[in-house]
């Protein structure tokens, strides 16, 4: 198992307090930029009914699923109450030379 860093986008492609959908291979991720300019990444689909979270609303550090209002703290992936009860998987993110990089675990 190795962490593999993947290029997501330029820093400016995600607004502060917003989210971007990022598809890579068979996986989909949600990449967040906080109002404080920190970057985070979680699994891209809501744990409730597999809806793309990136269509949802980011307020402060919470992403709200577009359909069922399931809410998660995107920094920890923690589910914040019904209808969602399963946490989101999170992934390391770093910024390098103006690019956002995401670490996915290579499944060998």
């Amino acid at each position, binding site marked *: 198992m190795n962490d593999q860093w993947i290029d997501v986008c330029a820093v400016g492609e995600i607004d502060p307090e917003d989210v971007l959908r990022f598809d890579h291979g068979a996986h989909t991720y949600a990449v967040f930029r906080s109002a404080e300019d920190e970057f985070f990444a979680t699994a891209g689909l809501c744990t409730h009914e597999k809806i793309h979270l990136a269509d949802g609303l980011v307020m402060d550090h919470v992403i709200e699923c577009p*359909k069922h209002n399931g809410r998660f703290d995107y920094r920890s992936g923690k589910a914040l109450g019904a209808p969602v009860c399963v946490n989101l998987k999170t992934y390391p993110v770093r910024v390098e030379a103006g690019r956002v990089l995401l670490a996915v675990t290579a499944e060998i």
Partner: protein
Amino acid sequence: MSQALIIVGAGHAGGRAALTLREEGYTGSLILIGDEAHLPYERPPLSKAVLQGSTDLAGCSLCDSTRLAALGIEHIAGNPVSRLDPQQHRLQLADGQWLTYTGLLLATGGRARRLPEAQPPVLYLRTHDEALALRDRLRPGTRVVVVGGGFIGLEVAATARGLGCEVTLLEAGPRLASRVLPAPISAALLALHREQGVDVRLNVALECIHADAVQLVDGQRLPCDLVVAGIGMQPNIELAAAAGLEVGQGIRVDAQLRTSASDIYAAGDVCEFRLAGVYQRQETWRNAEAQGRHAALNLLGRALPFETLPGFWSDQYHWGLQTVGVMTARTVSRALPGAGLLLFYLDDDARLQGACGWAPGNGAARDIKLCERLIAAGTVLNPGSLADADVSLKLLLRG
């Protein structure tokens, strides 16, 4: 007597109430009684993913049997409640057994309204089993006539087209989903369905249904293999009515979702509550979720008024519709990306009361969520800013 809470109706509202009671620390006896053989499930996927065959019952269930057992929720299926006795705080099951409660929730939902004369080729869609029966009949080339241009009819039409069926949709009124949608969105839905090859006919009346065709009052005969009727829901109020509880078009409740019997609450599709002073029911996922949870809290003595805004969504083809709040006569519209549309409903003081968004995919979701917050904030808004797609609603919210 030790505490015993009973929930009649194991659909979304009833199931959510049961789970909430445990999450909130209730440790007494908890019984969930349902007509259907299944664990509580959410209904929106029935007309879409379940009909397409891309998800199954487990994919829409609120929880699995392991979790239900672990939570100590006793699920009674296939032994429905036949009688309710509010004076004695007890109810009787079909097998004759009496159960006594200290608190009761009626979440009995409804059933698909039937066409006046029971016709053998007509299918309906309300339950999971009805969805499976319909799914088995939708094959490429099947000629389907959908009766009713409301959401069930429209979603069935969209899914059937996706499966390669030939679809004709009949609506008695002058536009689609007219009870709950504004005219511009009805028009957009009509255009989309026609573009996708559905033969939509407005202002038509059904004369009769034959084994191989539908006959219209104007004399037209529409040959078909299958008829699906989506003509509304009949609330299951009979148990409550026979027990002497106050009913209207649903089981009537006060602001706390309490019925005319002080230890009995109602929630979900069957619950008739006052919204802006008028008794009405909300047949939506959002209402089942919110009221199920809310009734559970009040069964535990919280005495909270129910104040959740109404709202719903619908997915058809690659388009999504989402609403929140209520419609008013004062409308402002803004364009959404991808030829979408967002309608704002204001009161006389230019405070937001409701919104309706129509966009590709879930493209309206974010703005609708912001509208919900704008409604709650009660901010006086500038109609010009609302109409301007370049003005972020988040910015308006934060003033």
